[in-house]
């Protein structure tokens, strides 16, 4: 018996398989990288949107989407959705979803193009602090004149009295310092640094009945040099820095012993007016109305009286620290900081911290969103009984695996559904390897049969649709397999010619015919399959049908060759088949788990 060429044939087969495996491995890595790219694009888009939100906490979704889109586009993806997670009006996080197109092809499934969708969430938290060396800035929202002076004075409620003081830098205000500060903040600065007596001289005297908001009230006026001054704020109330050991506060006009009243020239009032309900609640609880209004405006509270009571309690816990008081009152430092900024305007020390956050847990079963990406080779259909039933079973099994991959994709975020395409290709190569290297002839034929069925399923699906579009690694794999197919067709034909037993002649002949038919099917792609410069090649439906026919012939050959074994009634053989099937199923499961683990970086 001549053994010439046996090792060479095996070596060529092994090298071909290794090359095919390498092509598929490359495709897999490309697909996995595509998933990683999508996740990175999502991460950076979410951070970009959160940074835009940090710069403008009240920015609309359009502005955030533009920021996210710039980051996503720069990383090869496009934004699918942007939504802001808010508590009231306070932004907490931005959820961004991006899609990154991944294209490629693999043997047996042809060209695939899908959007890999990735999601990310970036959180934003705010912090604010009153500048250490100055008074708390006030956002008068364009207001000027007497009412603005009232708002500026009221905003200082809670600061301590300091004799001679006119700012936070000095630790607080004295009575005339508060008036001086308020008029300056309202755009009507007073000359010099007036004392209460100076203010009395600057003011036009009036009666108590004529008092209007921002008018001044004095003690000691009959002497011509009053020693105390406050500001009338309306509704029978005065805001005043009373005396050492006390804080700027509201007092009823009738409780102060005021004996002189006057009006400073401050022009007409302009700008927004205060909400009387908020003003009343703030005065009743001795809290700055602007801070209370900011809380309500941001949706951090709904009941002005209750919110004022909470803020008053917090201010007692944190004297002189309105930022800490607002954090306690709102129950959230970030919300408190945003309220302080809303009340104080851009002049306050305000910062935002942006961090990538874990995505929330997926919704419960039953409310799960539609899978973001699935791979479904075009035209794959089950077709009834007989071979159709077999294909249907295989199709169902493939869909089960596909669903599993999609679930893994949701869980892990990076195992793309496209990876399944490569996994199928890898399994097909594994079957070819098993058919060559398994020690038992029956197992070899079983693997060959399984591979043939897989080929039939894939090729029949493509034949029913638009054929197979080959590109990239898939095109090269097709080129290699076509040349390999020609070689093996000739090799099998030669072996059939040389075989002495009828059984062997039939078997090798079947393999030669099936390989030849399938190769002829692939060659219907024409010159593009051979021309190395071609980027794509297309196998028409007729070619796909020939490839399916080749698979059918091979599967039939396997059944013919193993007819005795399959029909054997020997119980030991049946038990052996059962045991082997169970072991094989376990091995396939282990291999699948290993492949999935290796693909999933998490």
């Amino acid at each position, binding site marked *: 018996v*001549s*053994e*010439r*060429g*046996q*090792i*060479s044939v*095996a*070596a060529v087969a*092994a*090298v071909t398989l*290794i090359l095919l495996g*390498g092509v598929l*491995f*490359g495709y897999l*890595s490309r697909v*996995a*990288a595509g998933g*990683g790219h999508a*996740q*990175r694009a999502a*991460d*950076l*888009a979410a*951070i*970009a949107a959160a*940074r835009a939100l940090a710069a403008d906490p009240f920015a609309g979704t359009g502005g955030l989407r533009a*920021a996210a889109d*710039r*980051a996503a586009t*720069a*990383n090869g993806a496009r934004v699918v959705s942007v939504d802001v997670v808010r508590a009231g009006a306070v932004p907490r996080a931005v959820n961004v979803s991006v899609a990154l197109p991944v294209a490629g092809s693999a043997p047996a499934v042809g060209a695939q193009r899908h959007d890999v969708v990735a999601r990310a969430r970036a959180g934003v938290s705010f912090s604010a602090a009153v500048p250490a060396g100055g008074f708390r800035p006030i956002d008068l929202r364009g207001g000027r004149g007497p009412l603005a002076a009232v708002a500026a004075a009221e905003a200082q409620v809670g600061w301590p009295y300091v004799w001679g003081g006119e700012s936070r830098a000095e630790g607080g205000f004295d009575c005339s310092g508060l008036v001086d500060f308020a008029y300056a903040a309202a755009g009507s600065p007073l000359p010099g640094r007036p004392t209460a007596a100076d203010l009395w001289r600057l003011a036009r005297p009036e009666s108590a009945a004529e008092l209007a908001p921002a008018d001044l009230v004095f003690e000691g006026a009959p002497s011509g040099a009053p020693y105390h001054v406050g500001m009338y704020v309306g509704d029978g109330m005065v805001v005043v820095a009373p005396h050492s050991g006390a804080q700027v506060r509201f007092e009823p006009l009738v409780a102060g012993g005021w004996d002189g009243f006057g009006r400073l020239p401050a022009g007409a009032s302009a700008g927004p007016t205060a909400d009387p309900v908020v003003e009343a609640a703030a005065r009743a609880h001795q809290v700055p109305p602007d801070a209370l209004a900011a809380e309500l405006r941001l949706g951090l509270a709904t009941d002005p009286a209750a919110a004022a009571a909470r803020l008053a309690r917090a201010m007692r816990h944190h004297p002189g620290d309105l930022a800490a008081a607002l954090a306690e009152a709102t129950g959230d430092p970030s919300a408190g900081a945003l309220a302080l900024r809303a009340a104080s305007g851009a002049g306050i020390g305000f910062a935002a911290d*942006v*961090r*990538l956050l874990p995505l929330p847990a997926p919704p419960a079963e039953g409310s799960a969103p539609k899978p973001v990406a699935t791979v479904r080779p075009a035209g794959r259909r089950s077709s009834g009984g007989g071979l159709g039933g077999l294909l249907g079973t295989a199709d169902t099994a493939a869909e089960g695996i596909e669903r599993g991959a999609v679930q893994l994709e949701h869980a892990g975020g990076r195992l793309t559904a496209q990876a399944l395409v490569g996994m199928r290709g890898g399994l097909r190569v594994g079957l070819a390897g098993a058919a060559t290297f398994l020690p038992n002839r029956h197992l070899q034929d079983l693997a060959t049969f399984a591979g043939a069925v897989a080929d039939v399923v894939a090729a029949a699906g493509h034949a029913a649709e638009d054929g197979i579009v080959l590109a990239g690694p898939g095109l090269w794999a097709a080129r290699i397999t076509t040349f390999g197919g020609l070689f093996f067709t000739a090799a099998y034909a030669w072996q059939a010619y040389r075989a002495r037993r009828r059984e062997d002649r039939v078997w090798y002949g079947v393999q030669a015919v099936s390989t030849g038919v399938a190769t002829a099917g692939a060659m219907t792609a024409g010159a593009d399959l051979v021309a190395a410069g071609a980027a794509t090649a297309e196998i028409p439906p007729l070619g796909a049908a020939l490839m399916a026919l080749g698979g059918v012939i091979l599967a039939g050959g396997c059944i013919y060759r193993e007819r005795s074994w399959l029909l054997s009634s020997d119980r030991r053989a049946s038990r052996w088949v059962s045991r082997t099937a169970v072991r094989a199923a376990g091995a396939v499961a282990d291999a699948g788990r290993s492949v999935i683990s290796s693909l999933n*970086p998490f």
Partner: protein
Amino acid sequence: VRRERGQATVELVAVAGVLAAVAVALYTLFVLWAAQGRAQQIADQAAVVVAEGRPVPAALRREAAVRVSGRRLEVRVHVTLAGGLGRTDAVARAILP
């Protein structure tokens, strides 16, 4: 039959050589693939921390050369091939927001 003596041995030696060359090539490809994947991972992590306004962790800098130039972030992982016979870099890039 005499003329075929040693034929299998000759073929075996040739096949062993071919397989060894293929194995080295595949191993080299694998090393490059693994380095490229790691570079990509580092680029992903570094891009996120830089975008958040934080410095690149020292652990990442020890493993790869991370360079930020404007909005471009580039990561280079040094790769030694075939037992030191060759050297190259696996490069990954990201565009910062």
